[in-house]
């Protein structure tokens, strides 16, 4: 499903987010990058309706997100937070099942069909057989995968991931981004991910959006958009783009 942003403006305290026209194509991975405080997470939370974006500014498959009820919206868009920060230690299965909330009545509970979907989602992220483990026993990398599995169980076509690779070791970083890639290629999900790791963004994304001070500075396919002057203006530091054996690196 295509996500379209039109003249989005959102402000809180002394921060202001302003995004003019932006399109996230269907079944593609788009990375939103930029320095700390650029507004990446705020933008993602607006796309997820965690923060209230004004009406007629975000459209998913042509539907105004602000005009939809919570349930309808959650069936279109799933949000994967940077970290799970809940108090109670649920079993992995119980946690993933919360992704089915949009499909269940207020007084309802998950059925065997929901459990089957949760199991399938966990298998897809490579954690089969971990349903009964408690969430707090999992490693950081496994927790991220469980968060993604919950978004999969939610069945939404658009997945928004807030810095899914932060604090992960290189192996888990690559695994998480490769999973995002597979979700777009195999399941046709539209993936929007905020990232700090530019190498990962170039390697796994179809498009990149550069943000600074709450605004989009540049956007487009990675290799066509990237330039050293752009990096300098976004990060306020000198960076060299080094290409080696088809890979792109950033020398700082």
């Amino acid at each position: 499903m295509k996500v379209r942003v039109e003249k989005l403006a959102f402000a809180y305290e002394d921060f202001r987010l302003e995004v003019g026209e932006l399109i996230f194509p269907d079944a593609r991975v788009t990375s939103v990058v930029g320095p700390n405080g650029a507004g990446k997470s705020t933008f993602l939370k607006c796309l997820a309706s965690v923060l209230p974006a004004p009406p007629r500014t975000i459209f998913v498959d042509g539907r105004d997100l602000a005009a939809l009820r919570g349930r309808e919206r959650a069936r279109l868009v799933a949000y994967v937070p940077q970290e799970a920060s809940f108090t109670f230690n649920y079993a992995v299965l119980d946690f993933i099942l919360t992704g089915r909330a949009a499909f269940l009545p207020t007084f309802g509970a998950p059925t065997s069909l929901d459990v089957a979907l949760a199991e399938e989602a966990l298998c897809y992220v490579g954690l089969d057989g971990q349903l009964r483990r408690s969430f707090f026993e999992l490693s950081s990398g496994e927790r991220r995968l469980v968060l993604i599995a919950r978004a999969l169980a939610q069945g939404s076509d658009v997945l928004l991931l807030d810095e899914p690779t932060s604090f992960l070791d290189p192996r888990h970083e690559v695994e998480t981004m490769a999973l995002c890639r597979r979700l777009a290629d195999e399941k046709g999900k539209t993936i929007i991910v905020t990232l700090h790791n530019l190498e990962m963004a170039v390697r796994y994304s179809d498009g990149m959006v550069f943000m600074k001070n709450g605004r989009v500075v540049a956007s487009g396919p990675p290799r066509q958009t990237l330039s050293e002057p752009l990096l300098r203006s976004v990060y306020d530091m000198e960076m060299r783009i080094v290409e080696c054996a088809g890979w792109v690196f950033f020398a700082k």
Partner: protein
Amino acid sequence: MTGSASKTRAWLTWAALALPVVLLVLSLNLGSYPIPLKAVWTTLTHAPATGPGAAPTPYADILFRVRLPRLLLALFAGAALAVSGASLQALFQNPLVFEFSLGISYGAAFGAALSLVFLGRAFPPQLAAFAMAVLAVLLVVLIAGRSASGIVPVLLSGIIVSALFQALLSLVEFVANPYALQALIFWLMGSLSQAAWGDLAVTLPVIGLGVLILILLRWRMNVLSLGDDEARALGVNVRREKALVIAVATLVTAAATSVTGVINWVGLIVPHLVRMAVGADNRKVLPLSAAFGASLLIVADDIARSAASFEIPIGILTSVVGIPFFIVLLKRSGRVWR
């Protein structure tokens, strides 16, 4: 989990759910005037045939006028306090929240005391208790403000509001006449001795319906316990569903408190014990909290009316027995919040 282990677990769950009913029946023979279990059974099963015009036997008089109403009240009030504690903990994502720490108990006690001392029950104490309990929660949410999902702001606000209502309660005690004061103090320490069918006719259906609603919302509480942002992203109408849970939890606590007085710790201890035993899933935590809360209060009432020649206020018992028990459990288990 193997098939036999899950079957055993299912049996244990059903046994736990049946426990309060078994305890209630067994407790009917306890008290200053012991009644053999066989006589309890005969009296209970023959009561409907006796008819309203027939003179009650001493056994029937004790059972129907004294013991059955107070044990039913223990069952319902225990379930109400434990379920509302478990619900509020899930909702505020805070294992230290319960009706006392949110000011609900003292709000309800103040409302009921106002009604008892000044209005002579002209204004239903349940309604007065509920109104003040709602006011207490609103004050806590208002004081905590935007940090209402944070552990410390909610607890601090709850302490402030509890202190306010305790002070107002003291004011009522100060101006109450000596006879009303004596009754009020005994009631405030928590007692089931005031259980009368007239009060129960109002209180028990309210508690029963409220507990049922909270239990039906048990899975939703798993979602709400993840925090407002996540619940919203998962498609939940957070404001509406939180308001529903808070209103019902406040209602059942206020309804129980208006008849039993202040009985603390049940709403904190029982959900923690249940979580230690079965994990954090509210689908299990809520029904089992209801069962163990009811059982705890029935046993506490048995002790209250059998341990000494006088009746020990049940609120004192739950605190004196509950707190050390809870400390031991805290020391022995590192899985308290799970």
